[in-house]
Each structure stands twice: as structure tokens, then as C-alpha cells.
């Protein structure tokens, strides 16, 4: 049976890990390659690198980082953050990224999804959607959640699928950073309405939250950052507990 995936997310700036990382046995917590290898060793199923570099030089460094990760890490990884052109996607894939994730650029120019999936195949195109629930309505937000739009989450997700995305990474801004659990109601609605895999993001605080997002949220994968980086939830323990709850995972 296809297993549910556990995905640590690493924020990258100028080729270095930025968020505080407190991981066992790391010589250099800022080195994304070393961190990625550790995560692969403890059973992470995939990795996501989110590039928050603001400059062209920073992005060029990230490209080098992607190549180093591909060289040394034997599990799949996705790169996202500030991607808006076919050339940029081509560069990332050529450096060895398995998938790329686009977000604001897809909202601004939805044809980009078609262009990318036609050229590179939908299997490597992830569309990330940040949304916030405002008075029962889920509205898509741009630029890391800072700019609200009038676009409905579910309509946009459907359009993203129809345009050829291979997967959706849905972050609930109401839940992100709260450690109170994932947005399972919205996730379940997305997962039932769509035919492509959905990654749940935002709100992971304890192991039960992961159980819930797979059972109640019907998510195909769950992404988190700080609970993994600070060792609050060891991945091996998380996966054992998921298995105990009859959720298929790779052990």
C-alpha cells in the first residue's frame, strides 16, 4: 500500500538553513546538506527546501546547494520559494531537484502551471497554496501569506489540478505556528474534491496532530518544520506511533 509521507521543511537563505535548528549530532546546523542527510537517515520520506533569499546572488547560491543535496541525499526533495519562470525551474531540475513548488507566481499567472507541467511533467510540479479562513471563507494569500486575495481556496485548488499540477501543498495560515493541529476540515474537503495528492502544512505540535491529519484530514503527506528541527517530535517515534494507529508508513 502507498504510505503516508512525513516531510520536514527547511528554510534556506543564501544557501544556508536559517530557522533555528537544534538537531542531534550536527556539526553545522546551518548546513542544509548535513541536515538533509540526517533527516534521510532517521526516516523522513521527502524534504522540502523553501528558499527565502531576497537577492539574485542568494538564489544562485541556493542552486549550488540544490546540487550538493542531490549529490548526497538518497530521498526525493522539493525546492520552492520565489520561482516564477520556466528557466528557473529548468535550472533547479537540472541541478537535481526532484520537484519544484510554485505559489504566488501561479496565482498571478495561472498559465505558468500549464507551461511547467507540459514541459517537465506534472509529477514534478507542486503548487503551494497559503490560505486563511475569514468568516467561514477560505481565501488564498500571496507572498508568504502577507497579501490577501479574493480567491477561494477550493476553487483555486481545483483550477490548479486542472492546469496540471501533480500535487498541492496547502498551508493554513490560521494554524501555522500555533502547534494546535492541522486544518483537517479544509484538508478533508480538498482531498475529497481533488484527484491529486495533498500535503498538509501548518499547525503540527504533537504526534496526535499527525494521526488526525491523516485520518480526519485525509492528507497524503504532512509537512512540518520546528517540531522536527528542535527534536520535539523524533521522526522515527512519530512513524511508529502512526503505524500503531493503523496508518501505513515506511518504517
Amino acid at each position, binding site marked *: *500500500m*502507498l*504510505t*503516508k*509521507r512525513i516531510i520536514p521543511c527547511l528554510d534556506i537563505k543564501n544557501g544556508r538553513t536559517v530557522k533555528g535548528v537544534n538537531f542531534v549530532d550536527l556539526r553545522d546546523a546551518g548546513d542544509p546538506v548535513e541536515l538533509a542527510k540526517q533527516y*534521510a537517515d532517521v526516516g523522513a*520520506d*521527502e524534504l522540502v527546501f523553501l528558499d527565502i533569499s531576497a537577492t539574485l546572488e542568494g538564489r544562485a547560491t541556493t542552486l549550488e546547494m540544490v*546540487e550538493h543535496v*542531490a*549529490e*548526497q541525499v*538518497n*530521498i*526525493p526533495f522539493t525546492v520552492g520559494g520565489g520561482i516564477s519562470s520556466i528557466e528557473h525551474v529548468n535550472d533547479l*531540475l*537540472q*541541478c*537535481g*531537484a*526532484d520537484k519544484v513548488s510554485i505559489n504566488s507566481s501561479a496565482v498571478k499567472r495561472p498559465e505558468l502551471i500549464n507551461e511547467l507541467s507540459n514541459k*517537465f*511533467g*506534472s*509529477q*514534478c510540479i507542486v503548487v503551494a497554496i497559503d490560505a486563511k479562513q475569514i468568516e467561514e471563507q477560505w481565501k488564498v494569500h500571496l507572498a508568504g501569506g502577507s497579501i490577501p486575495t479574493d480567491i477561494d481556496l477550493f476553487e483555486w485548488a481545483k483550477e490548479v489540478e486542472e492546469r496540471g499540477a*501533480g*500535487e498541492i501543498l496547502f498551508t493554513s495560515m490560521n494554524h501555522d505556528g500555533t502547534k494546535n493541529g492541522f486544518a483537517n476540515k479544509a484538508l478533508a474537503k480538498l482531498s475529497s474534491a481533488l*484527484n*491529486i*495528492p495533498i500535503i498538509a502544512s501548518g499547525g503540527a505540535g504533537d504526534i496526535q496532530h499527525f494521526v488526525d491529519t491523516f485520518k480526519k484530514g485525509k492528507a*497524503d*503527506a504532512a509537512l512540518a518544520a520546528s517540531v522536527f528541527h528542535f527534536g520535539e517530535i523524533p521522526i522515527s517515534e512519530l512513524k511508529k506511533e502512526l503505524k500503531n494507529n493503523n496508518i501505513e508508513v*515506511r518504517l
Partner: protein
Amino acid sequence: MKLVIINYGAGNIKSIQFAFKRLGVDAVLSDSPEEIMAADKIIFPGVGEASSAMKMLDESGLDKLIPTLKQPVLGICLGMQLLCKSTEEGNTKGLGIFQTDVKRFSNDLKVPQMGWNVIKDLKSDLFSGIKENEYMYLIHSYYAEHCEETIAATDYGINYASALQHKNFYGVQFHPEKSSLAGERILQNFLEI
């Protein structure tokens, strides 16, 4: 050991090259018939859409060359599918090495199948040291139907052939280069065939 990865413009071959590098083998990317024919082992990769990949093979004449190869050839993902008789993706005729057809997964499932699933009923030297129900990483929307050449099976809605072998031709639907240590073991096994 001269290992060549057939370079016909299809998808991410860097990952495969890196995986062999981790095993201590330098794989050469090539589209030259001479270089491919002179290799000890050949990788036939493929990511993307079947009909456009087939078109690229056709334009380079590699579609004629590949079936004549006598050394061990390993098709990966779309590479495996293109070695079959046909695929529903873009109604494409394949190279016809494996006597089976490639169909699309049912829409009752999430398509593509994306993630880690198990391979079982293993029967080939390719899987030496690999336990039954080992996890492999897969991303695909189309699957090969079972045939006599099936050497591994996987369940996703349906039970299908996740690996095939005919004489010197091997095909795997999963990505050994992205399937952790077990995947690397399969690549090592291929080098030792």
C-alpha cells in the same frame, strides 16, 4: 566498468548520476550510438510524457539502437514503460522489449501515485539482498500490466508489474536512485549483473 546513461533529453538524470557516484561509479551521459554500444552497462532513464520522449528517441535514432543492445540495460520509470509494447499515455507505441502494455491508473485513485510503496514477489538477481515488501519511491500515473516478464509486483488500486526483465533488459517503475539504501542496493546489484 563503463556505465552510460542514455541522454535523450528526458528528465532528471542528474539524480541517477549522483546515485552511482555515491556507489563509487562515474556514469557518463551520452547520446552517441558508439559510446552507448561500447558501454558495459546502460541506464535508460525517463521522466515526463511518453509520446514526446518517444519522439526524441525517434529523432535521434536511439529507438532503433536500444533494442539491439546486448549488455545489461536498466530502464527506470518512463524508461521502463517505453520498453513495453505500448502505453496509453499519448497513445504511444513502445520499443516492444517487454510483452505488456502500459495503462493509466483508475480515476478512483489519487493520480499520480506519489510516494513510497512496497515491492513484492521479487524474482531476479536485481533484487539480491532486498527483502520482500521493501519500500521504494514511485511517482507515476501509468502502470505496466503483469506479464511473464514480471519480476516485482506492487499494489495501487490494482496489482501491477513494478519491475520487468527480458534477457538483458531490466525495467523498474520505481526510482532506485531516490529510494534510500535499498534503492542503492538495487543499483549496486545491477552493476554486478
